């Protein structure tokens, strides 16, 4: 019998009853990637192969509790797996490595997935670094680990992202980043969402355990968008965690310019919170631009309110000074059929082209350029609708539900190799 070039991997299949661990943030926690985690977990929990999801989450502030705001959602998306929340780490705590290891060892999942980026575990260098060593440590302890790495050090503009204030410090951080990346790549598998990242990691680190796994669209079970806008002011919306590489100064200044130029009523909606790495950022912005009228700061947006926030927006703006990976907000804007305004920087523009999205572009840090880009959308409803339609189609291309099948295939092969070795 001729040998296949690649070994058959689809048999015998995952045994039912898989217990998947996930180290992640999760709503109502406000840490970065919590929104992605929500949808990622939901897709895993709907798979018949998965019996239990063990969510190793960050600890919530007093008075908050996991699992309280998702019950209605579960009625729409049947979940076959049970979810168990195990809060066991805290942002900026240097003991996270040890605490997560102990929690995982006690819970004994079959595999652990890390939903993370470089600043997931802290804004201070030591806790951030130690946390990122956890996947390697788990593997060392015999626990299969898969990392979904949303950004890589090589493509982050550290100065603009707010992690390094001078060139020397940037070089030091890059060297440390290089070492940490080596350690992250000690996990059994590392998934990234952009093809270029696979090429960079393979070439720079000489590894073969990196794979491309698309970002996937968040399924909302909403009706297809009508592209109509509610009556009232035209809303320009930005969504995310602000203060590091997502900065709203240029947007607020562009909004002020637009209000001076236009007769129509406008509202700027800044939806979201401070980045954990930039406490009090939005509070300071509100003070700094107190004289600019018609700005609404929503604070934390609960999952149930996301559809309304996006639905009311005439344009979604990405006021990024740097990107740190595939944008979940772009996929969400696509899901809701929105026209988007994007900076001409790095891999965000690449993602837009590669994944079939379209948008108006502006020069970073240039309020006039941003105001002009927004105006092109506000002034031409047909252009706005056409752009929204294309983004909707792009977002619907591949659902996170499909992407999770990819992960399960990789996990299947990983576990079958381990069984063979055992």
């Amino acid at each position, binding site marked *: 019998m001729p040998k*296949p070039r690649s070994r058959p991997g689809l048999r015998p299949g995952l045994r039912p009853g898989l217990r998947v661990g996930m180290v992640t943030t999760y709503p109502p926690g406000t840490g970065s990637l919590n929104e992605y985690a929500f949808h990622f977990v939901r897709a895993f929990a709907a798979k018949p192969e998965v019996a239990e999801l063990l969510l190793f989450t960050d600890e919530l502030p007093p008075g908050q509790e996991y699992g309280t705001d998702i019950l209605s959602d579960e009625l729409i998306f049947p979940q076959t797996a049970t979810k168990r929340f195990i809060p066991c780490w805290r942002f900026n705590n240097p003991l996270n490595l040890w605490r997560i290891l102990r929690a995982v060892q006690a819970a004994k999942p079959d595999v652990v997935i890390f939903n993370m980026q470089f600043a997931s575990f802290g804004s201070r260098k030591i806790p951030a670094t130690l946390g990122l060593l956890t996947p390697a440590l788990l593997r060392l302890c015999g626990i299969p680990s898969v990392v979904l790495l949303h950004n890589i050090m090589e493509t982050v503009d550290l100065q603009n992202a707010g992690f390094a204030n001078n060139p020397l410090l940037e070089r030091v951080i890059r060297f440390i980043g290089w070492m940490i990346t080596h350690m992250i790549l000690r996990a059994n598998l590392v998934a990234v969402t952009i093809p270029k990242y696979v090429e960079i990691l393979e070439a720079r680190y000489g590894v073969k355990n990196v*794979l*491309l796994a698309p970002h996937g669209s968040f399924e909302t079970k909403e009706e297809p968008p009508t592209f109509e806008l509610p009556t009232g002011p035209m809303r320009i919306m930005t969504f995310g965690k602000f203060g590091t590489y997502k900065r709203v100064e240029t947007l607020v200044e562009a909004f002020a310019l637009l209000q001076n130029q236009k007769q129509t009523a406008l509202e700027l909606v800044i939806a979201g919170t401070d980045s954990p790495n930039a406490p009090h950022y939005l509070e300071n912005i509100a003070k700094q631009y107190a004289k600019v009228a018609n700005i609404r700061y929503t604070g934390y947006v609960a999952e149930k309110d996301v559809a309304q926030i996006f639905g009311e927006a005439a344009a979604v703006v990405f006021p990024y000074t740097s990107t740190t990976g595939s944008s979940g907000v772009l996929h969400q804007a696509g899901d809701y059929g929105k026209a988007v305004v994007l900076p001409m920087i790095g891999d965000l523009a690449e993602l837009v082209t590669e994944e079939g999205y379209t948008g108006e572009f502006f020069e970073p840090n240039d309020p006039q350029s941003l105001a002009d880009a927004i105006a092109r959308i506000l002034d031409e409803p047909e252009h706005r609708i056409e752009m929204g339609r294309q983004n909707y189609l792009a977002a619907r291309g591949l659902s996170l539900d499909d992407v999770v099948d990819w992960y399960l295939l990789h996990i299947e092969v990983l576990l079958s190799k381990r069984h063979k070795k055992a």
Partner: protein
Amino acid sequence: MVTNSRVIDQVQVINLQGRLDAHQGKHVDSLLAEAMRTNNRTIVNLSQVHFIDSTGLSVLIKGAKHHREQKGDLVLCELQQPVRIIFELTRLDKMFAIYPTESAAIQALQ
């Protein structure tokens, strides 16, 4: 997308031609489902496919998964270089049985 389907030695062989992307995904999806109803051993010949995107990959993954659930198998053959690169980037070349020729794939499924 141009397709044709035939049975050789009790193995279903599906030839795809053109782009396997979001626009063609549903068509190929139903083709694989139809193939599985008649025969749970299927070869997808990709010799005439010069482009595949993530949706195309997902269709093949789903097809393979459904075949496996029916105790069958879905294998691939004759991948062109651009398509092979995508399989390597996604490490799906480790998940699927991929054969250099159609006859090798048929022989393997006997």
